[in-house]
């Protein structure tokens, strides 16, 4: 048994325990069962035989009373039907054998010659009984019976049944215990394995899974808590170790830094232009302040206590005093710019006065240390800059006002130009016409031609005025940018041109969905000019073509208007956008020379650029954008690029 339990595993112990328990229970149960069963069997046997004997008795009473042996014998003979009954006999009231029966001659000797006392005896093989025979409460004889008991066979059979049950039960309990293992031992095994792992790896972050709510679950929980406690302790220990190491490192760093700092300070102080001073915990100057005294001309007596404030400019003194008291009370760093008496120069100079409290570990101010930095020149420079800025601002405002005024004047001027300069032109033209019409018969051809020239001149001037007004308007008008579909505008304009000269056949091509962002009226002016130019300069061609589209240059996209008209010499390209500059004979292609100037102005106002490429008699292409470009500022000018 000890050897069995020594198998160390709980699994074995459990198995053996379950089997032992089952076996013990079965043994007790079996014993009780067998004893009970045999007792019961015996009782039934006795009862059965007694009943049989009583039956015999009852049937034999008359035979006994009337001394009829034959009848009694016949009665006994009926027992032949019961093979388990080995022998039987009836005795008269005197105990003499009256009649007998035996299953086989072997049993004759079993039949006593004389009646015995009433009794019942059961042994392993036989049951034997004597019973009195009554008739009407009177004993008239007795009956003897001997039968097979079958106790031996019965015992054997019951044992057999019980053993089969025991085998089945033990098998079942083996199965049960293996199931229990899964429920009980596997969590324990898990914890055991985990414990082994924790010991080997020193990893306290491992945790066992709690799968049940019973004692094992509690055990696992407790184990986990223990682990986390150990883990916590260990990590605390490690942290405090590393902190310790860090502190040691910091301390050595600090020592090194301190010695470096000391060195730096020594060097700094000796080279510093600013003067240093010291004050006690209350902010009062202590005895020697050599640098201070040599700056302010004070003496140790005059600067003592708050005497140093006397060197501050009277206008600043009260504020400085107040702020200094406050700083001393609160023990916080102090910084203030004020004017301090400079004795060598005999003037007040701006200084930056800064101070810091030296605080002991207990939080008490030990003393104050401070620096006085002469910033007089810097302050003066700053003031000058501010003054200049203000002046500049003022000038800009003046200029702006002037400019607005000029704009207004220009506007009223252009208004009167448009209105008043055109009226006389109308008169000149109108009345020249009237002359030709009313007095044509009195004028010779030459006079009529002169009048035509007068009219042409007037009309040309009218157009010039219009164009000039347009140009100035384009420059002044407020820019309102909106998303535009240039393709639509172009289609509209070309349609108008076509209607103005229906006899011309011009092939036009417009790329769809050319989108831009600009002022709709001004952009319309641009396209109006470019298309009417293209229309005009292709007048002499039968296969006139005008194209409006978009191309990419250097990652930027440009709109273009291309025609196959007269074109121009590229050497005059830089004069193209100058007002009143024309590259063509007015008689050949009439114009004022203001259109392209207006176009360029509109495009520049949008921040875009325009240039043209052309070849004489081959046509021209005008490229333009309406959006500002970063490269515009450092790029070549648009014209020279072309």
């Amino acid at each position: 048994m000890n050897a069995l339990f020594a198998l160390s595993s709980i699994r074995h112990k459990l198995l053996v325990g379950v089997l032992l328990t089952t076996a013990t229970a079965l043994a007790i149960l079996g014993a009780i069962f067998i004893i009970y069963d045999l007792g019961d069997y015996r009782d039934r046997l006795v009862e059965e035989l007694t009943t049989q004997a009583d039956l015999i008795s009852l049937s034999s009473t008359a035979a006994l009373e009337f001394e009829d042996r034959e009848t009694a014998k016949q009665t006994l003979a009926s027992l032949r039907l019961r093979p388990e009954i080995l022998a039987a006999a009836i005795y008269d009231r005197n105990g003499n054998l009256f009649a007998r029966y035996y299953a086989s001659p072997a049993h004759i000797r079993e039949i006593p010659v004389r009646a015995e006392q009433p009794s019942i005896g059961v042994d392993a093989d036989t049951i034997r009984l004597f019973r009195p025979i009554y008739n009407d409460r009177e004993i008239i004889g007795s009956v003897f019976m001997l039968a097979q008991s079958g106790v031996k066979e019965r015992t054997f059979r019951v044992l057999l049944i019980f053993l089969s049950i025991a085998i089945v039960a033990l098998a079942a309990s083996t199965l049960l215990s293996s199931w229990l293992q899964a429920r009980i031992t596997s969590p324990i095994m898990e914890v055991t394995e985990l414990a082994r792992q924790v010991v080997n790896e020193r990893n306290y972050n491992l945790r066992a899974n709690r799968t049940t709510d019973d004692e094992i679950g509690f055990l696992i929980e407790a184990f986990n808590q223990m682990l986390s406690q150990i883990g916590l302790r260990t990590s605390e220990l490690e942290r405090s170790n590393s902190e310790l190491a860090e502190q040691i490192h910091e301390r050595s760093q600090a020592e090194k830094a301190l010695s470096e700092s000391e060195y730096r300070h020594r060097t700094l102080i000796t080279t510093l232009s600013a003067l240093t001073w010291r004050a006690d915990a209350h902010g009062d100057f202590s005895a020697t302040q050599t640098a201070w005294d040599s700056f302010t001309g004070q003496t140790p007596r005059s600067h003592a206590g708050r005497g140093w404030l006397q060197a501050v400019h009277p206008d600043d003194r009260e504020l400085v005093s107040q702020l200094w008291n406050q700083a001393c009370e609160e023990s916080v760093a102090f910084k203030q710019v004020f004017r301090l008496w400079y004795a060598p120069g005999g003037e007040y100079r701006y200084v930056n006065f800064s101070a810091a409290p030296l605080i002991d570990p207990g939080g008490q101010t030990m003393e104050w240390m401070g620096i006085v930095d002469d910033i007089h020149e810097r302050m003066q420079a700053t003031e000058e800059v501010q003054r200049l800025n203000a002046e500049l601002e003022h000038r800009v405002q003046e200029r702006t006002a002037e400019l607005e005024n000029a704009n207004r004047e220009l506007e009223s001027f252009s208004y009167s130009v448009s209105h008043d300069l055109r009226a006389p032109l109308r008169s000149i033209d109108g009345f020249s016409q009237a002359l030709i019409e009313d007095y044509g018969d009195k004028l010779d051809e030459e006079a009529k031609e002169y009048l035509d020239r007068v009219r042409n001149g007037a009309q040309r001037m009218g157009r010039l005025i219009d164009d000039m007004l347009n140009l100035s308007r384009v420059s002044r008008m407020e820019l309102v940018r909106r998303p535009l579909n240039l393709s639509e505008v172009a289609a509209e304009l070309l349609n108008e041109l076509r209607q103005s000269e229906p006899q011309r056949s011009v092939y036009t091509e417009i790329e769809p969905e050319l989108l831009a962002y600009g002022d709709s009226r001004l952009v319309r002016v641009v396209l109006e000019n470019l298309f009417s130019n293209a229309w005009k300069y292709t007048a002499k061609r039968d296969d006139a073509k005008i194209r409006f589209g978009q191309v990419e240059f250097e990652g930027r996209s440009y709109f273009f208007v291309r025609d196959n008209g007269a074109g121009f010499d590229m050497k005059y390209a830089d004069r193209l956008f100058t007002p009143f500059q024309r590259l063509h004979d007015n008689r050949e292609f009439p114009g004022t020379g203001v259109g392209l100037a207006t176009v360029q102005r509109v495009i520049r106002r949008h921040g875009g650029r325009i240039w043209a490429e052309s070849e004489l008699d081959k046509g021209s292409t005008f490229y333009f954008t309406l959006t500002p470009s970063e490269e515009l500022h450092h790029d070549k000018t648009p014209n020279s690029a072309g």
Partner: protein
Amino acid sequence: MRAVRILLALLILHGSVAAANDTSRPPLADQVKAAFIFKFCSYIEWPPEIFSTPQSPIVIATFERDASMAHLLTETVRGRRVGERPVQVRTLSEHEVTEGIHVLYLGDDTRLVRSRIESVKGQPILIVTDLPRGLEFGSGINFRREDDRIRFDISLTAAQSNRLKISSRLLTVARQIEGAEP
């Protein structure tokens, strides 16, 4: 107890009737017959209405000419009971009415048997006779002698006509049974 002793004596003597033929004493056969008559009472069931109480006695009657039998019967039944009922023996004169009796021993007088059986016919009385082919006269039980032993025949017809029930156990020891179901 005395009766027991007599009975014991009877039984001891049983089997050697001839040898014990003592004239001073009634013949052994009659003693056996008296004992049988008494014992019959245990196996007969009378209609219950003829007894007023469970303790009402069973009356066995003989005629004067069978006085010896009457005497033997009186000896036999003395102090004995059938169930709870005591047993009385009455001797009737020749022409006395047979009233209040349950067993009537008519012996072997053919004339008597004839007349009396006729007179008690239908009454719940067990008629016991002792003459050859006695049952033919209408008696319920008739003694007969067989191998020196006293045996008897039973007539179920007669018993039924007299409203008597005879125990089947008694039938097992009867030599002949008249009127039995086949």
